[in-house]
C-alpha cells in the first residue's frame, strides 16, 4: 500500500506511465478485490490531476467561502433584514473583494511571466508607495478641511491616474532598451522610485497633525469594510476595459520561454511585454486605490496556482490565481467580521478585549511565511 500511495503522490507522472511501469504491478495482488479498488483509485487520481477538474474544485471552494461570507448569521432572520443586510452591508464589500482578486491574480501572474521571475510582484514597482504618497500629500497640502476628499471618487481617480502615469514613466526604459536588460532596468528604477516616494511620505507624515495622521493610518492597511459604491463601479469599468486588451493565453505561454525563444517563435517580445506591463499598471493601481496595499496576496496566489496546477499554461494559472486570491480575501474578511468578533474568541483567546485585526495583517502574515518558504526553495534549487 505504501508504494501505491507513492505513485499517487507523484502526480508528475501521467496516467499512461502509471499503467505501464508503475510499481503497482510489482506488488503481488492476490485478491481481485484489491485490484478493482486500485483501478478505481487510479481513476480518481487521474481525475484530480486534470487541470480542468482542479479549476472546478477551486471554483467550488470559492463559491463555498463566498456563500459563507454572504449568508453567515442571516439564516432564520426575517426577510427584510436579510435583504437589507445583503444589499446595504455586504454587497459592496463583496464586489470590491471580487474586483481586487481579479486585479491581483491577473497582474501578478502576467508580471511574473514578463519578468521571468517567480518571487516578484508588481508591488516592487512602487504602486503602494505612490498611493500612500498621494494620500499623504492631500492631507499635508490641504489640511483636515479637505479630509472628505480622501474617501471621494475624485481622490480615487487622481490616485489611479497618478499611479498609471508614474508607472508609465518607469516603463520608458523598457521601450528604449527592451529584452532582459530592459526588465532589470525597470525593476531597479521601480525600486528606487518606490523608496523615494516612501521617504517623502514619511517626511510629510512627521509634519502633519497627529489627528490627521490617524486618518492616513487607516489607509495604510487595506480594507473592504465600507467602499463607496461609485468607486466600486468606476473600478469595475476600468478593470473590464483593461482586460479587453489581454493577449491570447497561448502567446503568454510562449512569452514565458524568455525573449530569445519567443522571438524565434514569432512573438513580438517587446510589444507583448509593454502591453502586459501597461495592463498590470492599470490593474494594480485600481486595486490599490480601491482597497489599499496588498503586499503578499499576489505572491501567495500566483505561486500556489503554479503549484496546484503544475502547468505553465496561462489559461489555467491566471484563473486559478484569481480564485485563490478571492478565497484568501473572503476567508480573511469572514474571520475578521464574524470569527474574531464572536464572544467566545474574545473571551478565551483575546483575553476579554475586542481586537480589530486588519485583513492585511492576516494576508501578509500567511503570505510572508509562504514567501520565506519560496526563497528557501529557490536557494535549494540554485544549489
Amino acid at each position, binding site marked *: 500500500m505504501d508504494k501505491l500511495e507513492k505513485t499517487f503522490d507523484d502526480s*508528475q*507522472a*501521467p496516467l499512461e*506511465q502509471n499503467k505501464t511501469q508503475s510499481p503497482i504491478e510489482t506488488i503481488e495482488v492476490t485478491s481481485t478485490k484489491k485490484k478493482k479498488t486500485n483501478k478505481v483509485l487510479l481513476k480518481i487520481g487521474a481525475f484530480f490531476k486534470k487541470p480542468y477538474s482542479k479549476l472546478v474544485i477551486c471554483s467550488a471552494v470559492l463559491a463555498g467561502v463566498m456563500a459563507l461570507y454572504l449568508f453567515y448569521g442571516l439564516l432564520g432572520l426575517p426577510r427584510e433584514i436579510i435583504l437589507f443586510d445583503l444589499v446595504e452591508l455586504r454587497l459592496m464589500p463583496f464586489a470590491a473583494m471580487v474586483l481586487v482578486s481579479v486585479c491581483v491574480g491577473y497582474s501578478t501572474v502576467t508580471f*511574473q511571466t514578463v519578468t*521571468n*521571475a*517567480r518571487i516578484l510582484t508588481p508591488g516592487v514597482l512602487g504602486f503602494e508607495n505612490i498611493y500612500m504618497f498621494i494620500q499623504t500629500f492631500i492631507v499635508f497640502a490641504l489640511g483636515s478641511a479637505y479630509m472628505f476628499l480622501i474617501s471621494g471618487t475624485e481622490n480615487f481617480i487622481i490616485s489611479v491616474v497618478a499611479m498609471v502615469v508614474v508607472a508609465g514613466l518607469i516603463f520608458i526604459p523598457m521601450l528604449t532598451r527592451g529584452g532582459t536588460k530592459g526588465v532589470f532596468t525597470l525593476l531597479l528604477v521601480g525600486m528606487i522610485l518606490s523608496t523615494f516616494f516612501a521617504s517623502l511620505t514619511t517626511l510629510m507624515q512627521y509634519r502633519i497633525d497627529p489627528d490627521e495622521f490617524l486618518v492616513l493610518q487607516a489607509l495604510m492597511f487595506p480594507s473592504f469594510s465600507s467602499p463607496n459604491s461609485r468607486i466600486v463601479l468606476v473600478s469595475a469599468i476600468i478593470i473590464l476595459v483593461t482586460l479587453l486588451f489581454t493577449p*491570447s493565453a*497561448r*502567446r503568454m*505561454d*510562449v512569452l*514565458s*520561454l*524568455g*525573449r*530569445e*525563444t519567443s*522571438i*524565434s*517563435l*514569432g*512573438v*513580438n517580445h517587446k510589444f507583448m511585454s509593454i502591453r502586459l506591463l501597461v495592463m498590470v499598471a492599470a490593474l494594480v493601481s485600481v486595486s490599490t486605490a480601491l482597497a489599499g496595499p496588498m503586499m503578499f496576496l499576489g505572491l501567495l496566489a500566483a505561486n500556489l496556482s*503554479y503549484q496546484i496546477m*503544475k502547468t*505553465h499554461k496561462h489559461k489555467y494559472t491566471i484563473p486559478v490565481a484569481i480564485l485563490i486570491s478571492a478565497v484568501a480575501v473572503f476567508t480573511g474578511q469572514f474571520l475578521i467580521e464574524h470569527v474574531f468578533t464572536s464572544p467566545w474568541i474574545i473571551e478565551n483567546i483575546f483575553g476579554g478585549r475586542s481586537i480589530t485585526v486588519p485583513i492585511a495583517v492576516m494576508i501578509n502574515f500567511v503570505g510572508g511565511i509562504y514567501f520565506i518558504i519560496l526563497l528557501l526553495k529557490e536557494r535549494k534549487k540554485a544549489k
Partner: protein
Amino acid sequence: MFEIKNLTKRYGTRKVLDNVSLSFKTGTITSLVGANGAGKSTLLSCMARLLKQDEGDVFFEGKNIKEFKNAEIAKRVASLRQNNTFSIRLTVRELVAFGRFPHSKGRLTKKDDEIIDRALDYMSMSHMKDKYIDQLSGGERQRVFIAMIVAQDTDHILLDEPLNNLDMKQSSSMMKILRNIVDETKKTIIIVIHDINCASCYSDEIVALKNGKLMIQATPEEFMKEEVIKEIFEVDCKIADVAGNKICVYHNCENCADDEGKVLHSHGCADCADKPL
C-alpha cells in the same frame, strides 16, 4: 537565402561587426568561426532579429528582414541561443510542442502532434518525452531544444554554439544529425562553432570573422590551411589529413617549433621536457 549587406554593430564605441557583407548558400551547413569576441554571435543575433544592427541590412529571400511579419518569418527561420533558461516547469514534449506555435498558434492539430513525435524521434528523445526539462543533463537539454527547432520545421536554422556543454560523443552525433537534416530535407543551417575540426568535418562552408571583419568565406578544404588559421586565430598549428578530413592540431609545444614557426610536437612532448624555456 540570407544576404548580409554592410552590416555594422557597435557596443559603445567598439565595433563588433565592421561593414560585413556576405551571402549564405541555401541547402548547406555554414559554420561561423573566429576568436572570442570576433562578432560571430552578434552576426547570428542580427540575422535572428534578436539584435538591431547600427548600419546595413539583412535580406532574406531578397526582402529586407525588417519588412517581414514576426509570425511569417517564424515559419521560415528558427534560431537557438546558447543559454536558454526560463522559470517555468515544462516536460520535454511540452517544450518541443512550442515549436509548432508559428504554424498552429498554440492549437495543436493531429498533424502537429505527429510532427512533434517525429522531431522527438529524430533527436532520439522519445523515451524521455514526459521528463521535466530541469531533470535533464546539459546534452539532453540541448537535444530537446534542437528537437523544438526541428518541430518548427523552418527551411533556415540558426544555431549559436549548439555544441556547448556536449561531450565528444554527443557533439559528433549532434553534428551528424545536423548534417542529416541538411542532406535529407535540403534545409539551410548556419551555426556558430568554436571547434574548427568539427567545422571542417561537417560543414560545406566556413565563414571566419576577426575583430568584426569578414576574413574569409571558403570551403573547409581551402580554409584548413596553416597560414589561414594562423591569421585568424593567431595560433600556430599543423594541419593533417586524417581519413579524408583536414584536422588542425593546435595544442602544440612552443619550445620545439622550428625556425619557420612550424609546429613539430604536441604540448608537453618528451623531446623538449629538459630544454629551458
